[in-house]
Structure formats: structure tokens, C-alpha cells
């Protein structure tokens, strides 16, 4: 028989390979693991395309870029009420809230040791503006100049007391202009087509922040290492590993109470059953809103103010908030409670079915069914289909017929953008932590309102005036009050029905300190996290 020997040879070869492998392992030196005991692991479902501050706007990108770069001003921990100095040691606002003068600190240096100068700030903010990416909206009205090496003057074409807050955002990070230019960075008006810096910034951070990039893979993990030349307080963890992980996996991982690990996406029902030793911090920063089209050509029902009011009265706001778990709150106005300008919880909207039925009868719309478009996805740990099913059920109790219309996110965004949708539902977040920024979009004639067919002619004049007052008020405290007045009117006379607020939640292992959720826009400052 001749078949057996070759088979034996194969077996012998396989065994030899395995033995060699085992030998290699036995003889191999201990692998360089880059300081495993000082590694902080951040579990999050990645939403990131680039680590270039000029184009970053997604949640994961914001967390990472905030750790890599400094901005002129920032927030102290989770306190987002007032910006504090970062690269700027002080700033001064003009009375007309159009000119802001920042004085830079002397000791800040980039990761290559080069001092941070006003020219770097001018380059970075001009590049951000001229790249015309998503983040460019925050600086589109700004002009930046540098009278001397340590002074930056930011001028806005529109009076806005909140300019310093906008400049806390990771997109407004300051790049090392010399390094940036060497690698294709352009800050001129042609930056949108001429700039070639982004790919370089995905592998090398040209910033002055506490960390630098060790590796970047937008699909699996991002690793940061400490910046050896960091000018501020050295972070406790020498290495931060962001792992791309879905929510269920994050829950399983944190349920085992690991050490030096945090999860960024557990929210709503996904928090149920987590071990009590874990730390949880949160802040209601997301609002869930129905948008109804005010154009009769789109829908006779949603353009009928009484039908809208009937729907508003039919909603069980507390019941909807309960679907979000402990972080859910019934909406009082539009602005979530994390931000200045939110209405007090005592003003939370309540269900009134009798009123809803009466208003429906007065509307004359009858039992006409209206399609409710929503993105078929889970957001903040809650399936949006569950929320819309509750909306449909509440509406039905008042005799209002809604037809659920789930759509893939791309289709949803496209339809909503086209502005031909009678009714849609989606979660909303602020672009930066200034509630007044929503007003210009949502007030009649604003970009979002126009997509809902809400023109000034179709709007209540008092509501329009209240919106204009918010934008014209320059004193922050007065602006907060104006914002609250505007929301009270919007609650009664707008095509928006805000249903609930939900918290972003940061879950951290028990051994960590300073792992605090912030509504600032970067979720957490990983450089602030330490060992207990």
C-alpha cells in the first residue's frame, strides 16, 4: 500500500511545523506591549472619518481630536457654563460682541517643541473656514488676525456673545502651521481643493495636546500615546486605546467590571442590569423631536395648527421619556437640560387626551392618516422604532392616525433634506454647547424651518419676534431668558413637537477618577482620567 506513507509525511510535517511554532513561542522574548499597566481602554461604536480638526465633526473624532490638540479656550471638566483659557491665557470681548481679543500663553509648545504662536491660530481657523467641511459652519462669519505673536483677534460679521464657546470645539483646534504647510496644508480660499493635509493628520498629530497618535484605523482602533513635550499637566495614562465596539459588546465588557476601561455609548435600556460598582455620569444633551410640514401643499393635516396642537396634546411625554431609561426626561421646551436656556422640569409637557380630541374635531381634518418618517436605527441605546410606535399609539388614543415610515439613514436624510416630508422624527444635538445656535435654524425662514415649509407668513408673529430677540440679545444672562420665552411660544405655535431629552452616559470602571461625561461636544476628556 503506497498511500499511507505520504499521509504520514504530511502528519509529520504538520507536527514539525507546530513544534517549531511552539519552540518559537517558548524562545520568544516578552513582547513589547507599550506599557500595558498604563493603558486606558475606551469602548465606543466608531463614528469617525478623519482626525483632521479641519473636517472633524463626528462624535468619536471629536473625543480623539480633543485629546490631540488644544484650542484657544476650553471648558473645565463637565462645567460648560463658561469657557476657560487653554492656549489663550485671557480674552476680551468688545461691547458689540463682534470682536474678541485673545492673549496667548507663553509656555505652550507643539509636540515637536515649536512654540504656539498667533500665526498658528490664524492658519488653523482660516483653514477650517476655507476647507468648507461640516465643521466650517462654526467659523463662517469669523475673520482672524494676528497683530503680534501672542495676540489673536477674532472678528465676527454678526454680533454673537458666544463666539468663545464656539472656539472650544475640537474643530477649532490649533495646528502647527509650519508642519501643516510642509505636508500640504493650505489655509487660503482655495483650501477646499488645494489642501492635502488630512491624510497626514490621520497618522501624525500636528498639535500641542496631551496625546499624539500611535495608530489610527477608522474601522477598528485608534491608539494615542502621551505627548512627551506636552506643556500642561501630564495625563495619568500613557496610552489610550479607542476600540470600535457595538453597544451589546460594550455592555458585556463593562458588566465584567474591568479595570481602566470606559464605554461611551451605553444609554437607555442598555444601562439596565449593569453592576452597581461601575461609575455612570450623564447629562441630558439630546432632544427627540417631531417635525411637521407647515405647507398645505405637502399635507393638509400637518399644516393645520389645530391638528398639530391636537397631536401635541395627545403625546404621553413622561411615557416616551421612560422608554429612554433613567436618563430620559419629558421635554419642557426644545433645549435639553444640559444647556443654559433649558426650561425648568416643572414646565414639562403633559398629555391631555380630552384636549387632543377636541382640537382634532375643531381641526376638521378628520381621520386622515399621516406618514411619520424616521431613521430605522438605534440611537443612544434606544431603537427609534420603539419611540415612533409609542407616538403612533398615543396619537391613536386621540383619534389621530399615523402611519410609520421607517427608512435607512441615507434615505431618511435625503428625504428630510428635500423638505417634502409631512412628518418626521429624529434625535437632535447641538453643534456646539450654545442653545441659541438652534434659534436661527428653527425660526421661520431658518434653514431647518424652511424644509418644514414654515415661512414667516405662516408663523405666529410673536414667536418670530421672540426668536429675533434671542439673536439680538448680547448679554448671556438676558439671552437665556429670551431663549426660554421663545421656547414657550415655540411649544404652542411651531411645527416642532419636542418629545423628550436623553442623556449621553459615560460608564467607567470603578478604579478610574475624572471619567466624567460632558455635553461640551467631546463626550469625555481622556487626559483628565486617572487612577483612583
Amino acid at each position: 500500500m503506497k498511500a499511507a506513507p505520504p499521509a504520514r509525511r504530511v502528519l509529520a510535517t504538520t507536527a514539525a511545523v507546530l513544534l517549531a511554532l511552539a519552540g518559537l513561542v517558548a524562545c520568544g522574548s516578552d513582547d513589547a506591549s507599550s506599557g500595558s499597566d498604563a493603558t486606558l481602554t475606551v469602548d465606543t461604536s466608531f463614528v469617525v472619518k478623519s482626525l483632521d480638526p479641519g473636517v472633524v465633526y463626528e462624535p468619536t473624532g471629536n473625543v480623539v481630536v480633543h485629546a490631540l490638540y488644544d484650542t484657544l479656550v476650553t471648558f473645565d471638566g463637565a462645567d460648560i457654563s463658561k469657557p476657560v483659557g487653554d492656549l489663550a491665557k485671557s480674552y476680551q470681548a468688545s461691547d458689540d460682541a463682534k470682536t474678541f481679543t485673545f492673549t496667548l500663553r507663553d509656555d505652550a509648545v507643539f509636540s515637536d517643541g515649536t512654540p504656539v504662536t498667533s500665526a498658528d491660530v490664524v492658519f488653523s481657523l482660516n483653514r477650517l473656514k476655507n476647507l468648507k467641511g461640516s465643521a466650517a459652519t462654526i467659523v463662517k462669519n469669523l475673520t482672524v488676525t494676528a497683530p503680534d505673536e501672542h495676540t489673536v483677534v477674532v472678528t465676527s460679521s454678526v454680533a454673537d456673545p458666544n463666539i468663545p464657546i464656539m472656539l472650544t470645539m475640537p474643530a477649532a483646534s490649533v495646528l502647527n502651521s509650519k508642519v501643516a504647510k510642509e505636508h500640504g496644508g493650505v489655509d487660503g480660499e482655495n483650501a477646499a481643493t488645494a489642501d492635502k493635509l488630512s491624510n497626514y493628520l490621520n497618522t501624525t498629530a500636528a498639535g500641542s495636546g496631551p496625546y499624539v497618535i500611535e495608530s489610527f484605523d477608522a474601522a477598528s482602533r485608534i491608539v494615542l500615546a502621551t505627548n512627551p513635550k506636552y506643556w500642561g499637566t501630564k495625563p495619568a495614562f500613557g496610552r489610550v486605546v479607542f476600540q470600535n465596539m457595538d453597544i451589546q459588546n460594550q455592555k458585556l465588557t463593562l458588566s465584567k467590571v474591568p479595570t481602566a476601561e470606559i464605554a461611551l455609548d451605553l444609554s437607555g435600556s442598555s444601562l439596565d442590569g449593569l453592576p452597581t460598582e461601575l461609575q455612570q455620569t450623564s447629562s441630558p444633551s439630546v432632544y427627540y423631536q417631531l417635525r411637521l410640514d407647515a405647507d398645505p401643499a405637502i399635507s393638509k393635516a400637518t399644516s393645520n395648527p389645530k391638528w398639530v396642537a391636537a397631536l401635541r396634546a395627545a403625546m404621553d411625554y413622561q411615557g416616551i421619556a421612560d422608554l429612554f431609561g433613567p436618563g430620559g426626561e419629558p421635554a419642557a421646551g426644545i433645549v435639553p437640560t444640559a444647556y443654559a436656556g433649558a426650561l425648568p422640569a416643572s414646565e414639562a409637557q403633559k398629555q391631555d387626551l380630552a384636549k387632543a380630541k377636541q382640537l382634532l374635531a375643531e381641526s376638521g381634518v378628520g381621520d386622515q392618516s399621516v406618514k411619520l418618517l424616521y431613521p430605522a436605527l438605534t440611537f443612544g441605546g434606544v431603537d427609534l422604532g420603539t419611540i415612533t410606535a409609542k407616538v403612533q399609539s398615543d396619537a391613536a388614543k386621540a383619534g389621530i392616525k399615523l402611519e410609520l415610515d421607517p427608512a435607512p439613514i441615507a434615505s431618511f436624510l435625503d428625504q428630510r433634506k428635500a423638505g417634502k416630508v409631512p412628518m418626521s422624527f429624529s434625535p437632535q444635538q447641538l453643534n456646539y454647547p450654545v442653545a441659541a445656535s438652534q434659534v436661527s435654524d428653527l425660526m421661520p425662514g431658518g434653514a431647518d424651518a424652511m424644509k418644514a415649509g414654515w415661512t414667516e407668513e405662516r408663523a405666529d408673529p410673536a414667536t418670530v419676534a421672540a426668536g429675533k430677540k434671542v439673536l439680538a440679545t448680547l448679554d448671556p444672562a438676558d439671552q437665556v431668558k429670551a431663549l426660554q420665552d421663545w421656547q414657550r411660544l415655540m411649544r404652542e405655535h411651531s411645527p416642532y413637537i419636542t418629545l423628550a431629552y436623553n442623556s449621553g452616559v459615560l460608564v467607567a470602571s470603578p478604579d478610574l477618577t475624572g471619567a466624567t461625561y460632558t455635553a461640551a461636544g467631546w463626550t469625555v476628556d481622556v487626559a483628565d482620567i486617572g487612577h483612583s
Partner: protein
Amino acid sequence: MTGGTLGADPVDLTPDRAPDTDAGAPHAVHRRRALARFVGRKVLITIGLLVGVTVVTFLLVQLVPGDPTATNLSETAQNDPAIVAAYRAKWGLDKPLVVQYFTYLGNLVHGDLGVSQSTGDSVLSDLAKYVPATLEIAIPAMVLSLIISVAVGLWAAVRKDRAADHAIRGGALLGLSTPSFWLAIVLLYVFFYVLGIAPNGGRLSAKYAPPEHITGMYTVDALLTGRPTVFWDAVWHLALPVLVLTCLTVSALIRFVRSAMLEVLDQDYITAATAKGLPRRVVLRRHVLRAGLVQVITVSGLAFASLLSGTVLIEQIYSWPGVGQYAYRAAVNLDLPAIMGVGLFVALVYTLVNLAVDLLYGVIDPRIRLS
């Protein structure tokens, strides 16, 4: 009774007998030419197929409701016409569709698959990064699946209609009916959360830096760069996704193997071989298995291609950054260059696998080689 004449052919009982050397030389030249013609024809078909794929994919992406600006720009940015215009100009979306298509095709001829709107990197370098990750789970899963399904399928065929056969068929049916994502989640729960013997996903533990990129497969690269600890950590991370893929592929293959082997077992030449007094082990291994493998290879080729292109859910659950996740992100972001790149990759995989299967037929079955 089928194939009676084949069974009567004594050559089939000694398939590895060396041909006559005098007559063999011209015959070998003829065979090499035939093989070259065959491969050449396949290459031409592949090129045509790939061009066809670009047309179909391009048209399908245009038909999908959705605008790349809506998925790639923030909602506020979409309200700014200057930003939208800059985005469209940057990605060539402001040009007529025909121009966009032929620009793409022109670049493709030069090996340029374009730049992904999702990653900002060239699609080619993205694929070079993500395909090895998928290969790293697909290859071991396929090898294990073949070994298990051939052994178990043959065993079931030999024990046709006995308890073991019923159990194996039932098990295969159960495996086929099990949703892949469910199995993946359950295994993760059991092996990671309950037993604590598996990692929670990813390709490597957070404490290790990936090995230097040589092949893109961490296990191989770790060995090549002399990092055994990283090698074993990478193997540890492979275990669960490979187990899930193996379970699913075995379930699909076993039934084919069993029926293929049953068909061969019914042949007269098997009866003749047994009657000649050959040991049963030899009959099964040299005559039944070899003949039955032709059909098995066809199905295995498709299964392997499917593993390379259809592991989206498994990759998602195990945070495995392979081509499936890349395709998913491309689709969600309406990232046309990436979608086209993945489409071409999948078409190429199926074509190459089919070519390999065609060539393997000849290796396994001399009758096909001679024809």
C-alpha cells in the same frame, strides 16, 4: 444505475498510474496549450465581467434614494450651499453621471480605484488593509470547514439512514437555520462573559501594538516579525469568529458532501473495488472521496467566496475590521468609490475562485483533465 461505463473502465481504479512517457511529451504540450487557452479565455471573461460590475454598481448606487452630501455632511452644513457645492466639487459629484463614470473607468485602467469618501484614503489601500483581516478569519474557517464537513459528510453517507446519519443531517439543518448574528452573540456571551475564556472582539488586546504590516494578517505578521506573544493573542482573538464561520459553513457543506459521496458509493466501480478485496478504508479514501470531491469543491469554492464577501454581521459583532465592515460603512455613507471597489473585489473573488475550482477539477479527476 448511472455511469456504468465509467465503472467498467479499469483506468479509474489506478488514477495515479504514470502515463506512458513516449506518448506523454506531445500530450503534455497539448495540455499546457489547452490550459493556457482556458486561462486566457477566463481572464478575458473576467475583464468583461469587471467592467459589467462597474456599470451595474454605478447605476445601482445612482438609483438608491439618498445623496452623498446628506450622509457625509452634518445637517447644519447641508444648509450651507457653499459647503455643499465644495463637497460636490471635491468628489466630482457636480459632473454629469456619464463623465463621472468614464472618469472612474479611466482611473481604473491605471489601477486607481479612487478615494473613499468615508476614510479619505485610496480605496486600493483600504482594501489592502481590510481584505487581509477578512482573509485571516475566512481561510482557517474554510480549512476547518472542509476537513470537518468532508469527514462527517462521508461518515454520514457510509451510515446512510442510520441514527448517526439522521443526527448529522439534523445538526446540519439546525446549523443552516441558525441566524449567524444570533450564534455569534450567543458564543460571545458564553465564551467571553460567562466562561471568560475568549476576548470581547477585535483583532488584538488593547495592550499590544499590531505587528508591522507585511501581509496584513496579524498572525502571520507577528510570526514573521518574531512577536510570539502577539501571535498567540491574535490567534486567541480569531477563535470565536472562526468558530462561528466554521459552524455555518460546515452546516452548508455537510449536506453536499453527503449527497456527493452517496452518489459515488452507488457507482459500480466502487462495488468492483470492494469485490476485488480492497480494504474499505482504501476504497473510501482513494475512490469514493476523490470522485466525490469534484462536486464538493464546486460548493466549497462558492462558500469560500461567500466567506470573503459576506461576513458583515460577524465582523460587526466581533469588532473585526474586515472587508464586510468596510462595505457596510461604504453603503451607509453612499461612498461610491468604496462601494465600487468592494463590488469589484467581490466579483474578482468569485471569478478567481471559480477559476481555481475549474483547475482543481483537473487535479482531482483525471477524466476531466484529459477531456
